[in-house]
């Protein structure tokens, strides 16, 4: 027997090795490999995220513009799917059975291995009715559950560009901000975008522990790590919904923009960009096709012309030149210049229309004389007080800048573009240093040439005139969550023009509307409100001239300043002036009495029909 005694040691050695292997393996998975710790948490912890309701948006008269509507997404945890009655589910959802089976198969396939515990979207936005039916029969479909979501709902279908829309976040959004998870919504353009942080609120997280059957058992860490959701702040915007809606009606079938501002505060009363789109197409899952149509529309409905389109302002810019001339002491209220259907310089001529001659400053605005402003502009640039045209131009530009031109106004409308105001460099590059003079840049005198001004800037310009030299940065916010709005909207900006110089210009603008013979904007006249305005007909090298109007009312204590720009509308008095006038009437009197004019505008169609067809 004892000849095999060493085998006892072999056996002991074998047992020792087995113990060491087992302990080594345990040591490895418990201490070296961190994977299991992680998976263990994934197994057990369930982060229940409570999404706060997004803040509502009201207009200035507390009319509800945007609210939330609860829809129900059907989610599924792939691992928990058991055999269920596919026919019954198909019937409930009003799907075909094949759809149900193939969706389940697809989800199972996608989620293999990694995401079997992750809830996955099964059906989007089922109606409340389907939801109610489903709830009664829920037990039949293990693994499925309902995720309520708040979607935006728009009682008025207006101002898509202005209000903006929300849509599901993409991977970049998620990467940039932890707030978002797959399926969250984020404001994409407009107010929804620029006030995203206030509107979205604070989400709450409840960490629950769950068992293998996905039943929530208890809260993690006794709730110490949980947070409570805070609803988004309500946003009261400066828009007047009725005015906005009316503006959109007037601008239908036209390209262009209306911007109306309350001069005393800088609040934007209406901002129409035409064509427009209905923001609800971005929330309704059944209208996905329309999103595509809007995106590829050659008329670019999603391009907010009011802040993104730079136009030559045309004659409305004469008011600025008049003011600069007055301030610089080179033009006077009584200065008269003759105009013989234009201003002749060298072999060239700046043409003008037929009107009495000579005119003084007030009349020049009333009748919009090109020749007059050529003279004024030259006297500014070639002012003997300055040594060169360049220096004179610098002075002119400084004054123009004080109206906010040449840069962004820093309003709260997203994607606002700056207005282009040419610089010395612009002309040096074009003509060579010292090789240009007042005549070279004479187009500026009548608001043409290298000027590119957005409708928002035009409105701000006329608002500044209405305020006699002061403007407040235009903004859409009236109040948000009861908090004080950004200070930058409360600080008045003063122009470099003295207050007294505004009166003759305003007088001219008043006469243009109310002054009888020779007034360019008499169509804008209102019976008991003194409207002041200036038309413009901006030359358009690509087609028919643009119709422009800027004005405000009433003359004393103005309540509304407005700029209207109608692309390819021809004379300012044809489209822009009546539109502005109707808007002013709507705003100040709440009623429009001139049905004939309203009808003509609404029925007017200025869309480039052939053009559109060609492009398509």
């Amino acid at each position: 027997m004892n000849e095999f005694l060493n085998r006892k040691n072999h056996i002991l050695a074998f047992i020792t090795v087995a113990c060491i292997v087992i302990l080594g393996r345990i040591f490895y998975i418990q201490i070296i490999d961190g994977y299991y710790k992680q998976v263990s948490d994934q197994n057990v912890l369930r982060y229940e995220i409570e999404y706060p309701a997004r803040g509502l948006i009201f207009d200035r008269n507390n009319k509800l513009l945007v609210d939330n509507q609860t829809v129900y997404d059907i989610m599924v945890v792939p691992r928990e799917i058991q055999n269920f009655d596919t026919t019954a589910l198909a019937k409930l959802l009003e799907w075909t059975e094949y759809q149900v089976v193939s969706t389940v198969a697809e989800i199972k396939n996608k989620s293999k291995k990694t995401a079997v515990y992750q809830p996955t979207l099964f059906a989007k936005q089922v109606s409340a009715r389907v939801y109610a039916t489903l709830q009664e029969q829920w037990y039949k479909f293990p693994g499925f559950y309902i995720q309520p979501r708040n979607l935006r709902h728009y009682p008025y279908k207006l101002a898509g560009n202005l209000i903006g829309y929300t849509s599901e976040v993409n991977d970049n959004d998620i990467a940039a901000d932890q707030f978002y998870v797959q399926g969250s919504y984020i404001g994409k353009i407009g107010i929804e975008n620029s006030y995203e942080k206030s509107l979205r609120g604070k989400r709450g997280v409840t960490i629950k522990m769950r068992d293998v059957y996905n039943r929530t058992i208890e809260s993690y860490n006794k709730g110490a790590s949980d947070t409570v959701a805070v609803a988004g702040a309500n946003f009261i915007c400066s828009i007047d919904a009725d005015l906005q809606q009316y503006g959109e009606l007037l601008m239908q079938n036209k390209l262009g923009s209306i911007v109306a501002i309350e001069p005393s505060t800088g609040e934007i009363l209406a901002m129409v960009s035409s064509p427009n789109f209905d923001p609800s197409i971005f929330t309704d899952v059944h209208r996905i096709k329309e999103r595509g149509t809007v995106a590829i529309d050659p008329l670019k409905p999603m391009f907010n012309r009011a802040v993104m389109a730079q136009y030559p302002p045309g004659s409305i810019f004469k008011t600025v030149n008049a003011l600069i001339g007055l301030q610089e002491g080179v033009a006077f209220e009584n200065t008269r210049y003759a105009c013989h259907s234009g201003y002749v310089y060298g072999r060239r001529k700046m043409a003008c229309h037929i009107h009495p001659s000579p005119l003084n400053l007030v009349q020049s605005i009333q009748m919009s004389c090109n020749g007059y402003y050529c003279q004024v502009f030259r006297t500014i640039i070639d002012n003997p007080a300055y040594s060169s045209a360049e220096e004179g131009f610098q002075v002119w530009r400084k004054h123009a800048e004080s109206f906010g031109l040449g840069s962004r106004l820093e309003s709260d409308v997203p994607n606002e573009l700056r207005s282009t105001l040419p610089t010395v460099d612009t002309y040096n590059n074009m003509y060579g240093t010292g090789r240009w003079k007042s005549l070279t840049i004479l187009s500026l005198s009548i608001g043409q040439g290298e000027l590119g001004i957005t409708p928002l800037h035009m409105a701000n310009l006329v608002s500044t005139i209405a305020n006699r030299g002061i403007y407040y940065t235009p903004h859409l916010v009236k109040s948000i969550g009861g908090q004080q709005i950004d200070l930058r909207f409360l600080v008045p900006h003063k122009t470099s023009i003295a207050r007294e110089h505004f009166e003759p210009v305003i007088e001219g603008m008043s006469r243009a509307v109310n002054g009888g013979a020779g007034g360019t904007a008499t169509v804008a006249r209102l019976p008991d409100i003194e409207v002041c305005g200036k038309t413009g007909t901006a030359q358009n090298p690509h087609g028919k001239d643009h119709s422009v109007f800027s004005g405000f009312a009433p003359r004393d204590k103005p309540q509304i300043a407005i700029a209207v720009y109608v692309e390819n509308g021809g004379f300012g008095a044809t489209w822009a002036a009546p539109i502005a006038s109707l808007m002013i009437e709507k705003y100040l009197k709440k009623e429009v009495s001139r049905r004939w004019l309203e009808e003509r505008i609404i029925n007017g169609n200025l869309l480039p029909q052939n053009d559109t067809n060609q492009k398509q």
Partner: protein
Amino acid sequence: MTQTRNNKFIARLDWTTILIWLALLCIGVVNIYAAVYNGEEKNIFDLSLRSGMQVMWIAMACLIALLILVINSHFYATFTPIFYIITIVLMLATLLFGRVVNGSKSWLTIGPMSIQSVEFMKLTTALMVARVMNAHNFDIQKWKYTFQVLLVILVAVGLSLWQHDTGSALVFCSFLLVFYRAGLPQWIVFSILFLLLLFVLSLLIEPHSVVIFLSVFAFILAVFTTGKPLGCLIMMIIAAVFTTGIYFGCPLFGYEISFYYALLIAHAAIIPIVIFRALWRRIQRLIVIVVLFVVSISVNYSVDYVFDNVLKEHQRHRINNLLGIESDLKGWGYNVHQSKIAIGSGGFAGKGYLEGTQTKFNFVPEQSTDFIFCTIGEEWGFVGALVVVALYFLLLWRIIAIAERQKNKFAKYYGYSIVSILVFHVAVNLGMTIGIMPVIGIPLPFISYGGSSLWAFTMMLFILLKLDVAKYE
């Protein structure tokens, strides 16, 4: 007089073993409570919980242990064949009247309780093996005796397989350890281990690679046994040339042939040459190598066959899962994956008693029985695992020490039989929870929930202790 005898008896008992046994039982109850605990305020001794039931089984096990110690020691050796036959009858009764749990028919309901007859079969087989090896002149190398012990074991294996209880059937294979101690030639042990390796390799890699591996292995062995590297090399080269010739030649005659068969034909062609040379030069060992080679090839061939045609689907999946051939975390690999998560998330010191999230929320199936080690690993961490493994090691070491000090062969081999069964149970059970052994449903001795296994293991242990004390009489 009686007093002194009793005192002596108590003093001679191996108390270290008994203490380890008690420690393991306590660890068992405590962790079974954790495994079934779900936050309700229920006492650990509550009889509606498995922990309470286990306490009851333990109380009865203590009675049984006492009874065993009181009975005359000759009783066991004498009545072993009867015990063996009784358990065979029990096993057969289970097959007839038992109920199916987890695919195997291994539970027999007698009156108010259910027993797993196979657990007792392990005990009586251990006794029976010891009894056979106790025979005068017993020599494991003699066919007569080999046949006798193999018969004892094969009956048990056969009955277990008949119950679809592969795990238990494999337990009986662990008696190899006893035979080794009794003097089984080492080459047989190594051959068995080699076949085991071959089995795993056959599952893991392509058959033709296995043939090449075996061929090279035979070549190396031949070089060492014959001492004629040149001749062996020539044989290798011939085999290689034949193979290539057949593989590329056959298609020319219109026969498509797989590389595997080309290899087989080439080797079949050179084997007669090798045998002829071996006979000519009288190198017996070369013939042994050739025979081994042929056997290995057949094993390789039949492993694939057995795997595909004999093993059941769940067994195939478990082996595939273990070998990493397939990994299905939702299906077959789920148990092991969850078990590894539970243990792995325990860390060094564990999550704390009753704080194991995987345990509490029932992520691991069978947690109070076969996967009880997950609870220990998760809630007590590496420290707990170390204590458990150390206790088992100490227990086995004690039993070996006890077995070695027996003059009686019956007691000695009986001791080693227990060692074999325990080693197999512990190694395979712990191994499967950490993913280095296939999942075969066998309990962790003394810790897993269940009356049958608890009683059977306790009886095994105390019969040995009784025999140990009795050696002084």
